[in-house]
Structures are given as structure tokens and as C-alpha cells.
């Protein structure tokens, strides 16, 4: 999709126009996101992450190039981030890796310049990041342990058990009148808890029970994220990024538990990491690739 830069930021100016087109690729564990910056134009692309990271990245790249009518030769710099960042390789275009923590920080900063605290929930991990609102740089961060509690994977598993699509899970949860108590933080235990909750649900109230369970699952995941945030503290200027950030159920439950509102972004912040990566690519082009500039 093509956007004008001022349509994706709440700022009134855009300071990130690159010297030449640049690309940020965020290869996540479940979904991969790409952003191409050219002047004040912003192109976005999304594909589900495949088995081979390089193929996924190439798909994103092809989509971005097709949308913008650019060729790879015209691209001055590519920055990779996310789970699959290490696997990528480009022969002719300068490439570097920046962690998704720094990229989400920069992406959130660009889209929502007041941001000081970020909650990033992805497919397999969740992070709380404190950033400097003047620069978009990371001050401090914490990340969940290696288990999947409080991550997209947890929600995905729940959707499967409830027999609905992942993107229905949030809306279904919003219909709940009486969220079910899902106390387990472990996906595996939560699964058996959900099975017994379903078994208890009366037949003719199936839809209601489903909504209640879905809501319970969101609360369980959100409590986990709240604990994480407790370790770095919440400062106003709260942003929600990552693959789970477009789930309206999680959005509401987190706001309720944290007692704070997220800023409303103009860009779907599942692209925060890719946007940050593209901005780092623009900077790298300006500072680290002087030879390329000379060649223009």
C-alpha cells in the first residue's frame, strides 16, 4: 500500500525522507513486514513468514518494488530486523541488521513522536521498551522469557481451540459479558483449562461461552505483559506495536489493566519494526555509505 508520509504520522512534519529509496524488512516469527521509503512516499507490504526467511524477504521486496515501480538497483540501503534478520543476504545492495527492539522504538517514534513507552507483542515474544522521545532511541527494555505466554502464539493457539480465525479472536472477546477465569500463563496448561471451560459451557449458550473464554485468554496474556511493563514503568506516551497490536480485544484489555490509554496511530503499528528499519536504512545510507552517495 502507498501512503504519503504525513498520513502515517501524527507529527506535522516528516524528517525521514531518504537520499535514495531505502527498505526496511521486519522478518517476524509469524508475519513479515516491509516498508520502502522514497522521498515522502511510504510503501508497505505484509506476507506470512514462510519456512525460508530469504524467500519471505524476497517476496516482500518484490511487492515493495512493484508498488513503487523501483528496481533493486535503485535501492540505496536495506535494513533487516526481526527474528529472521540474520538469515538475509543481499549481494549488491548494502545491508545491515538492527534489532527489532531498536527498530520498534524508532518506528513508534516516527509514527507517534510523543512515545515514551512501547508495548510490542509479536508472534513469539513480548517486549516493553522505554524510549527517549527526543531521538527515538532505546533507553531500557525488558523481554518475556522464552515461553509463549503473553504472545501472539498464545492467542493463535486459543483461536484454534475456539474454532475461529485469529483475527476474529479480538472482536469475539469484546462481546464477552463475563470473562472466563483463565489463570494459567502457560499455553499448554491454558489449553487444558480452556478445554474444561468449553466442556462446562451449556450447549445453547455456546457463543456466549466462547466470547467469555476468548476474553479470559486476553486477560491472561495481558496480565503477563503488564508484569513485564512493571519492570520498566509506564510513562505517558504509550504505544502498542507488533503483530498483536491490531487485535482490538488485546488493545482494550491492556488499556483496562494498565489504567492508561494507548496513543491512536495513523499507521497500523504491526509495521513499526519495518518502519524503524527503513529509517535506520536511510540513516545508514547518509552516514555509512558515502561511496554510494558519491556515485549518484
Amino acid at each position, binding site marked *: 500500500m502507498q501512503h504519503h508520509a504525513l498520513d502515517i504520522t501524527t507529527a506535522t512534519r516528516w524528517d525521514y525522507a531518504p537520499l535514495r529509496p531505502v527498505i526496511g524488512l521486519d522478518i517476524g516469527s509469524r508475519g513479515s513486514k516491509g516498508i520502502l521509503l522514497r522521498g515522502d512516499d511510504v510503501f508497505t507490504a505484509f506476507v506470512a513468514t514462510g519456512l525460508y526467511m530469504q524467500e519471505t524477504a524476497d517476496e516482500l521486496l518484490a511487492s515493495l518494488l512493484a508498488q513503487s515501480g523501483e528496481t533493486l538497483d535503485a535501492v540505496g540501503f536495506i535494513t533487516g530486523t526481526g527474528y529472521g534478520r540474520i538469515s538475509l543476504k543481499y549481494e549488491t545492495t548494502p545491508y545491515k541488521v538492527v534489532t527489532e527492539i531498536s527498530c520498534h522504538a524508532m518506528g513508534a517514534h516516527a509514527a507517534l513522536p510523543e512515545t515514551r513507552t512501547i508495548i510490542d507483542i509479536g508472534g513469539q515474544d513480548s517486549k516493553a521498551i522505554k524510549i527517549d522521545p527526543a531521538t527515538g532511541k532505546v533507553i531500557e*527494555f525488558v*523481554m518475556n522469557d522464552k515461553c509463549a505466554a503473553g504472545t501472539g502464539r498464545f492467542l493463535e493457539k486459543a483461536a484454534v481451540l475456539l474454532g475461529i480465525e485469529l483475527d476474529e479472536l479480538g472482536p469475539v472477546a469484546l462481546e464477552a459479558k463475563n470473562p472466563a477465569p483463565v489463570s494459567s500463563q502457560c499455553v499448554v496448561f491454558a489449553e487444558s483449562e480452556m478445554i474444561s471451560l468449553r466442556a462446562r459451557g451449556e450447549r445453547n449458550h455456546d457463543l456466549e461461552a466462547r466470547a467469555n473464554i476468548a476474553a479470559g485468554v486476553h486477560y491472561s496474556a495481558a496480565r503477563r505483559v503488564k508484569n513485564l511493563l512493571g519492570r520498566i514503568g509506564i510513562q505517558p506516551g504509550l504505544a502498542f506495536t507488533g503483530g498483536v497490536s491490531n487485535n482490538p480485544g488485546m488493545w482494550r484489555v491492556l488499556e483496562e489493566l494498565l489504567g492508561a490509554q494507548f496513543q491512536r496511530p495513523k499507521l497500523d503499528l504491526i509495521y513499526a519494526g519495518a518502519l524503524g528499519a527503513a529509517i535506520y536504512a536511510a540513516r545508514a545510507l547518509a552516514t555509512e555509505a558515502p561511496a554510494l552517495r558519491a556515485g549518484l
Partner: protein
Amino acid sequence: MSSTKIHSLPAAPALPAALASLDALVHSAQDALVRDRSGARKVGYLCNYTPIELLDAAGVLHARLFKGGDTARAAAGEFYTQSVFCDFTKSCIGAFEQGDPLYKAFDKVYSFHTCATMKRAAEVIELFTPTRLLNVPKLRKHDDSRRFFREEVLSFRDDLAALTGNAPVSADALSAAIRERNALRRLLRQISELRRRALPPLSGRQFADIARAYYYVPPALLRPALEEILAAAGATGGAGAAAAGATPIRLLAAGSIIADGDRRILEIVEEELGARIVIEDNCAGARPFHSLVREDGDPFAALADGYLDQSPCARQRPFEDALEFSARLAEQYAVEGVLYVFLKFCACYGVVQKQFIERFNAAGLPVLALSSDYSESDRGQLLTRIEAFIEVLREKRLFAPPPAEPETAGTAANRI
């Protein structure tokens, strides 16, 4: 425009050779212990609070139960424990369960009670090998503690006499062993201190591999090998080298044991990300070599005091000692950040991370807390965390250049 890439030193040929020969010594010492048929008794011990001068003086062959980092070995130990034991204690048990030749060779294992988990592990090890538990007082400053620990030291001496069938270790023999171990500690500390240079001639991983030799190689063989390393590493680099390129990000690794074979975090930090662990505050790194045992007076009292007063494990009280020691190391080695690494479920370091983090933060040092184990499944997450932490430190360096590096800092500042 200079790049931010870390320029590695042209390796002085003497250092790799000296490190390789130390490595060979570590292996041959273990092999010699396994194969020895001279009738000498073979002893394993668990913690750094074991006064090994007595093992030296008693003429036993000995080694620390120090191996870790292997998933299968930890899993074998978990057969005997609950899951909430750290992977190191599980590995100590697992090595017996798996029939590791070194562990199998021990006639006896000594466990000086440090943490509760270790004590429990020793009780399981007793299923495989005779094991003796001895106590280490937690309250360092109490006179009673000192008197009591001297008694434990004497009891250890007598137990060794019973094991070997020899007369108990004499005061003179013990004094000689104390001097010998002190000489090794001095050398190891001098080697560690080479890392205070802006361009450390040794990586953290190399130092960890040097330090582990202390627990396997007999002093008479170890001393010349350490002297060789000190000379070779000391000759590497020098004043001019620092100016030649950007210096690596300097880190302190504080926390629980990073056992022999547990090199995952060191690899990520140094080999994948180009930062340097320049000093450790853990019982496998430089910490145990920071203090010496008194060489005059009653050697049994000196040994008891020396071990109680050593740079402390977090299990000791007053706990403030451990915090102060760590903060002092961070300052002496001019680190820019701290990796607080503790094994998952660690009963000592897991529960004091907040105090450590606050103490370092008060000194202006960012801290990354990493709870780790011996599995491989979270390598990607660890890499992400450490990489992001190092990105933060690089960023910080641009705005607050370390005073030791005016030239590099100047170049960096110009770049923004």
C-alpha cells in the same frame, strides 16, 4: 570516515600457542586423574568455598565438579531433581548419571554447603559416590563463624587423612600449599588485569578458559603455563593499538556460575556481536582470584578466614559486600554496561537481581538481566536482547565518550 567495526589486533603468535598449551594441560590433567593407578585418592568438590589448599597438601588428585552447558547432561540430572533446580546442579548430577569418566573416577566428593540447591545435589550425588557435607557460615563478620569454620577446615583435613590413610596435613605442608595457590591467584589476577587496557588482549571467553584450568591442573604445572600466558598476553597490543581503531564495548558479567562448557552467552557477546567481557563477578571468572589467603600465623585459621573473606558469593552476609565488590570491579575495569547473568531458578543470584541492578544503575551503568540455562531453544531471543543492549551502549558512548579513548570518541562524535 572511520567505520564502527571493531579492529582486531594482529594476534601475537605467542598468545594462541600459550592458550592452546594450557587447553592441552586441562585435558591431560583430567585424563591423568581418570587413568591414575598409583593409588592416589581422587576427589571432586562442588563450590569455590572448598579450601583446595588442603586437597593439594593431602596429595590427592582433585577437580571441581565444574562441567556445564550440555543440554543432555542437564536433562539426565533432572531425572533426580525437580525442574526448579538450576541447570548447573542438574549437570553435576547428570554427569554421574551419564557415567562421565572424570566424575566416575572420584573416590569421594566434598560439598561445602553454599546454596540449598547445591546441597541437595550433593545428597543425590551420594547415590553414586561417597559424599561429605561441610558447612560454610554465612555471617562472615561474626567471630563465632570464624572459629566454627576453622573447625570445619580441621574436620576436612581429618576426613582427607582417613581417605588417604596418611597422617593429617601438617601446618607446614598447608602453609606451603597456601603460598602456592596464592602465587596462582596473583598470576590469574595479573592476567585478568591486562583486560583493563582499552584494547583488551584477551577476550572474556579466553579468560574463562584460563580460569577453569585453576580447577583441574595441579599448581606445579599450572604456574609456568600461566606465566607464559601473562608474558604473551602482556606483549600483545600495547598503547598504540588502542588508537588504531574503535575499541570494543566493555562489559562486566556478574551473577551466577558460567560453568566449564557453558559458553553460549560469551559466544554471542564476543564472537557474534564484537563486544568484550572484560571482567567477571562470578565464581567461574576472575572473582575467586581477587583475594589471597594470609601466609603467616596459624595456617588453618588463615585458610578459614581467607575463604570466608574471599570476594563473596551472593549467599554470604553482609550482602552489601557482594554489591560493593561488583561495583568496584565495574569501576576498575571501566565497563560501560553490565550483563547480569544468572541460571534460571538460581536460589542465590535469581532473587537479588533487583539489588544488583539498582546498585549498577546508581553507578550510571545500564544492566541487562539474562536468565539462562543450557538449552539452545532461546538462542535467538538471547541474541536479540544482547544485541539491542549493545546498540543502546554504542548509542550511549556517542554521547558520553569514555575518557580513556579521546581519539576514538572524537571521531565518533564528529560522525553524528
